């Protein structure tokens, strides 16, 4: 083999893309040609240096910032809401509840996971009562998750321990809101109960409080962890909790990993009767 031919094939040889025959010829040539040997060393060194440039982490909070920009971009495309168009609050709420019931019934676990996405869509249509509607949505979502596995229904739900720090609405705050109109309407109440039991049937949920140094960094770690375990992620609107859907057999491993990211504390006992576990991780600053 001539030097010129050898050099033409060097890159391919280093990537093991030459034929066995070519590789053999190159090796014979290299053994007797110092210049080509030097050339090959240079090529190899360069490839190795390039490989070292590959290890790079994303800047902190990258995904969150990007999502913010995307939502903003998307929001700009939403049509302006016509002014002065308000109806009775509870009617809107029952519509929302009915919509959620439908989503849950159709979509099962996925439906619950996407409820929060749903409320973006719904809330942009609302005017003055939008905030309250959001609150309602959150309350119902929060309540439906930990309730899984229980068949006792309402009574059991009201006993769910919700950590003070989590800032989620508790059962009592729901009744306060109900006083403002919900309870007056039997249909709305029924719908709400139906929704909750449907959610309980379809989506089993556990909750974990995770105390961490920095919430943004922890989120990235949690996401990575969920990804590695073959699960899916959903971040809540307020950004202080993450919902994970994890294969049941990985749930304990997931909890252990959470404990490495921060101080994890279970609020429920991870006994879901399902192939996949829904786990809400409530993030708190240490």
């Amino acid at each position, binding site marked *: 083999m001539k030097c010129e031919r050898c050099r033409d094939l060097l890159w391919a040889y280093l990537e093991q893309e030459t034929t066995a025959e070519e590789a053999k010829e190159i090796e014979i040539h290299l053994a007797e040609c110092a210049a080509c040997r030097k050339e090959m060393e240079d090529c190899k060194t360069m490839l190795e240096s390039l490989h070292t440039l590959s290890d*790079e982490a994303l800047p902190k909070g990258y995904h969150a910032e990007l999502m913010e920009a995307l939502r903003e971009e998307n929001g700009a495309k939403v049509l302006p809401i016509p002014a002065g168009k308000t109806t009775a609050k509870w009617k809107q709420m029952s519509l929302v509840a009915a919509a959620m019931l439908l989503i849950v019934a159709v979509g099962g676990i996925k439906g619950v996971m996407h409820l929060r996405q749903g409320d973006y869509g719904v809330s942009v249509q609302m005017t003055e009562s939008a905030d309250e509607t959001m609150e309602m949505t959150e309350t119902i979502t929060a309540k439906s998750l930990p309730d899984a596995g229980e068949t006792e229904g309402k009574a059991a739900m009201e006993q769910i321990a919700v950590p003070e720090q989590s800032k989620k609405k508790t059962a009592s705050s729901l009744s306060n809101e109900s006083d403002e109109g919900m309870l007056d309407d039997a249909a709305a109440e029924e719908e709400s109960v139906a929704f909750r039991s449907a959610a309980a049937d379809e989506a089993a949920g556990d909750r974990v409080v995770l105390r961490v140094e920095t919430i943004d960094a922890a989120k990235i770690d949690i996401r990575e962890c969920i990804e590695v375990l073959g699960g899916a*992620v959903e971040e809540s609107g307020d950004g202080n909790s993450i919902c994970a859907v994890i294969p049941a057999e990985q749930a304990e491993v997931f909890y252990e990993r959470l404990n490495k990211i921060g101080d994890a504390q279970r609020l429920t006992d991870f006994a879901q009767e399902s192939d996949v576990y829904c786990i809400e991780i409530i993030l708190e600053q240490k």
Partner: protein
Amino acid sequence: MPKTEEGEKAFIARAKQGDVEAFGELILQHEKVVYHVTLRMLRHEEDAKDISQEIFLKAFKNIGNFDERSAFSTWLYRIAVNTSIDEIRRRRGKQTDSLEQELESERGRMRKQVADGKETPEEYLLRQEKAAEIRQALELLSPEHKAVLILRDIQGFSYEEIAEIVELPLGTVKSRISRARNQCKAELLKTGERKGEPVRQNKRKEGGFHEM
């Protein structure tokens, strides 16, 4: 995050309807690659962050035009490469950034690795020097050559994948990568000659100091 091809299709359909959250799930696993390619193309972390986020916004705006004949990732990386190349072209002639600024951010990152105990200070110094040299050599390539070299030798894409990303025949991609490597290697050799083995000189100086 969509795990199967079917799952990805559903997310793409939702993203096409303007569902930002679905789009967010789609891009999650590609963020690192896009950021990284952009960083190597544009050198500075700040630029890389801005431009890579711009790339995702562009992708979201144009997802309606994604015909799904290639993988979503391929389509996304194509936008990343093209946007980076355009950005380099746009900046040529009005280069305001300083090499020092770039070195500083790179040093900061590497120092962190030392602090993390991942490598010894000696390894760090050597790597820092090598990395700086190779990044400088990359700068002397045309943006198109730089792009394929980054995709192949830093990101580790296959020739076939790269051909799809840059929409060129496989043969063209292979020869372009080969040319880019040869040029890069030549630049590295020049740098080595210019510096005339500074490591050895330093050692001699240190030795002298200890003898006194």
